[in-house]
């Protein structure tokens, strides 16, 4: 007897349809699975067998052959447990095979017959080529994001089988989740006191989407600033939210209660993160990396100087293109990776370097520390800031600072202006459109010319400074870039000598 069940597997952030074919024939009892299952997929045999028996159904004492088509695609994980079980039940005539023709299924089975959600339901749901799909109950909302119509949930294998046989109530369809209030766990910018420059730089970075480098001794508030920055960003657009949700779903990141990732995510990988963890990939399955999980939001790299140079340089292409292309011998995937990069580092290994005069590091130690940062990577940061610890009296007695909500309203206005120009943020204005979108007043042109002549600016630097100046002018409500905007943008780009390790 033969049955086919439609399902899917996820690779990168894309679901690929898989058809599970089950053949049950007389002969010595046996179980064969073909079609490139990996170890976790092969283990499904024991789960499926126990789940079928626990559900009061019969495991056929016959020869069972399972083919996962297309056979060239490697299958991994437990998401095919449920379709395999359904296939076996249909092929052994415990449910009618015709019933399964309009159905797709995906899910992991427990030994007791319960259904468990799997990673990547958003991507999987959209990939199954059937009018209706059944997914485990806890993952219903997630699957409904990838597929607004025709998602049904079941809690146990028995419940599903009863519904298919007509013995029990039909399965309930799931609607896409209603909009819910996002839970904002990032702190308020009002907490940052006595650091006006840093506050302003965070505002500019958020408004224009400019990559930000914070250099400062321990305890100067670098991490605090980075977490506040996310709170200033506007909600994700529908397209970005969907892309971010797909990535999070595929990577197994917990989705918010409402299912859709509406708020810009903040990802802060530890500096021991490997290259693959950062950019994505992996041998068993192609998993999105941290930079893809930060899509639409902020990637915060604390202790930038401690990351492996290889991992850091791998960021250069995604920073430029907004996507990361992961290529392996057998397969390739393009994953979204447009993020705002915020990096923090100490000026030297002991952390007291810079101008405080308390540094205990030797010159070679400092040189080794800064050598990890390649010039091209440093060049990607439009705003480079030396963060100084706030003056003690400002912490306790300083005036109350503007809260995030006020700053965010200015940020949203600048983002709206950028959207009118046809870009997501000013930082993404292509160099070819700068003359049209960021026109320079004559005196501003003179400032830039002087900086170029003095060797303070490279060609790329010039374009970057103009985008930052565009943001500054937007914040001040100007159409053209004036001298003050350009001058301030140049100041924001000044590299702390301690970072480049130059003698002066």
């Amino acid at each position, binding site marked *: 007897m033969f049955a086919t069940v439609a399902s899917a597997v996820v690779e990168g952030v894309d679901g690929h349809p898989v058809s599970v074919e089950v053949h049950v024939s007389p002969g010595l009892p046996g179980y064969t699975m073909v079609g490139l299952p990996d170890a976790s997929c092969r283990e499904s045999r024991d789960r499926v067998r126990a789940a079928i028996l626990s559900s009061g159904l019969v495991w056929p004492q016959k020869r069972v052959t399972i083919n996962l088509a297309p056979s060239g695609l490697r299958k991994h994980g437990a998401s095919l447990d449920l379709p395999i079980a359904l296939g076996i039940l249909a092929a052994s005539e415990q449910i009618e095979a015709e019933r399964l023709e309009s159905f797709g299924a995906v899910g992991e089975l427990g030994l007791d017959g319960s259904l468990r959600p799997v990673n990547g339901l958003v991507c999987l749901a959209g990939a199954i080529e059937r009018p209706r799909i059944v997914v485990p109950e806890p993952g219903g909302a997630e699957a409904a994001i990838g597929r607004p119509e025709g998602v049904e949930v079941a809690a146990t294998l028995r419940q599903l089988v009863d519904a298919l046989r007509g013995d029990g109530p039909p399965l309930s369809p799931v609607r896409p989740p209603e909009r819910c209030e996002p839970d904002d766990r990032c702190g308020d910018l009002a907490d940052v006191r006595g650091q006006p*420059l840093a506050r302003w730089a965070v505002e500019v970075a958020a408004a224009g989407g400019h990559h930000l480098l914070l250099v400062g001794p321990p305890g100067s508030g670098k991490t605090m600033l980075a977490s506040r920055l996310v709170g200033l960003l506007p909600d994700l657009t529908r397209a970005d939210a969907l892309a971010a949700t797909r990535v999070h779903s595929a990577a197994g990141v917990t989705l918010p209660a409402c299912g859709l990732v509406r708020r810009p995510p903040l990802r802060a990988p530890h500096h021991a993160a490997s290259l693959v963890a950062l950019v994505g990939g992996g041998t068993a399955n192609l998993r999105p990396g941290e930079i893809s999980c930060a899509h639409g939001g902020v990637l915060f790299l604390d202790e930038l100087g401690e990351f492996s140079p290889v991992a850091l340089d791998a960021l250069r292409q995604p920073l430029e293109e907004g996507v990361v292309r992961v290529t392996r011998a057998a397969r390739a995937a393009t994953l979204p990776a447009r993020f705002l990069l915020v990096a923090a580092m100490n000026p030297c290994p002991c952390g007291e370097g810079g101008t405080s005069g308390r540094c*205990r590091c030797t*010159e070679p130690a400092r040189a080794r520390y800064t050598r990890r940062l390649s010039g091209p990577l440093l060049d990607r940061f439009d705003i480079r*800031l030396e*963060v100084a610890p706030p003056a003690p009296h*400002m912490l306790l007695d300083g005036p109350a600072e503007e809260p995030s909500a006020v700053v965010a309203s200015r940020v949203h206005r600048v983002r709206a202006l950028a959207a009118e120009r046809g870009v997501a943020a000013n930082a993404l204005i292509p160099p070819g459109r700068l003359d049209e979108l960021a026109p320079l007043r004559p005196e501003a042109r003179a400032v830039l010319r*002087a900086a170029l002549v003095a060797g303070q600016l490279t060609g790329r630097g010039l374009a970057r400074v103009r985008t930052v100046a565009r943001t500054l002018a937007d914040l001040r409500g100007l159409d053209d870039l004036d001298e003050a905007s350009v001058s301030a943008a140049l100041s924001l780009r*000044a590299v702390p000598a301690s970072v480049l390790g130059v003698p002066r």
Partner: protein
Amino acid sequence: MTGPVATDALARSLLASLHGMGPARLAWLLGGAPAPEAFDALCRGRIAGDPGPAPPGVTPALVERWTSDARKLSPPAAADALDRHGVTALTPASPGWPFADDPDPPAVLFARGHLELLAPAPRAALVGTRRCSAVGRQVAYQLGRGLAEGGAVVVSGLASGIDGAAHAGALAATAADPAPTVAVVGTGLDQVYPAVNRGLWAEMGERGLLLSESPLGTRPEPWRFPARNRLIAGLCAVTVVVESHSRGGALLTANEAADRGTTVMAVPGAITSSASAGSNQLLADGCPPVCSAADILHQLGLWPPSGIGAPEPGAEPCVATEGGDIGPLARLILQEASAGSIHVDRLVTVTGRAVPEVMAELQRLQAQGLIRLDGSTVLCG
């Protein structure tokens, strides 16, 4: 040999370029004879003049190698190379030769830059370890700058660490050329070493003076650096050790200075800092301490300056903050920055202005050369 050697300087350059040729061997080879003659003699397998006993390590085999190498040398090509790199070869006969009274003078000196810096002038050496602390680097920079502003010439070795910072300070003291600073290096003048100082090296060659005893093409070799230290000591009336570990090249320079009877001074450092162990030992041995550029200028006879009430070098305000076409905000900023360095956060708090306004003004002041922005720290001048 493919042509006659016309000048003394060129002959000395050629001899200096032979394998393993150091100052002592070169002096022996010359043996008091004119250099062209000595070169000629070597090419014919003889030693000119009255050579005396050979220095250690000079074997007949080595002399033979020198002879065969010397025959292959092309004097016009060597002269061309010197021209191409803008390098002048100086000899004891050159005007302004600074090593006339030196017990261990070089036989030839290669120079690039402003030769007038070799004229008699108050010169001070600022030397120290490459493995310096951040404080040491800062002190070297400030002393270099203070000395240059006080009218002294800063001499050092253009190594990484203290040496480089001292040169950088002296170069920053003035926009005019020549900047009063001389670097005595241990490699050929076309061989930048260490690479991290490439920019500084070029600027020294253009605005200051680069000196070396080694001919063009000489790669860094460990034995050449102690030898160049004696030249640093020999050029200066005062040698200041800014930071030195308990063993190190800077202490060798101090010994050379002591042998020549010139003053050795040291900058006191924390007793917990291993980078100051050597310099503190010098203080314990009785060297006068250096607590400001004025201490060194005093030794050189440049302090107190003739003008009454003149400000201490390195500590005066960046610029005259009065008059001119400077706005009120700029004036405030310059006043605040005159103490040396100040973070932008503090400027914003003190001036009470908005951050963008202050940042824009800082960029203008930097463009005018009145301040420097190092990251978010404002430095004076």
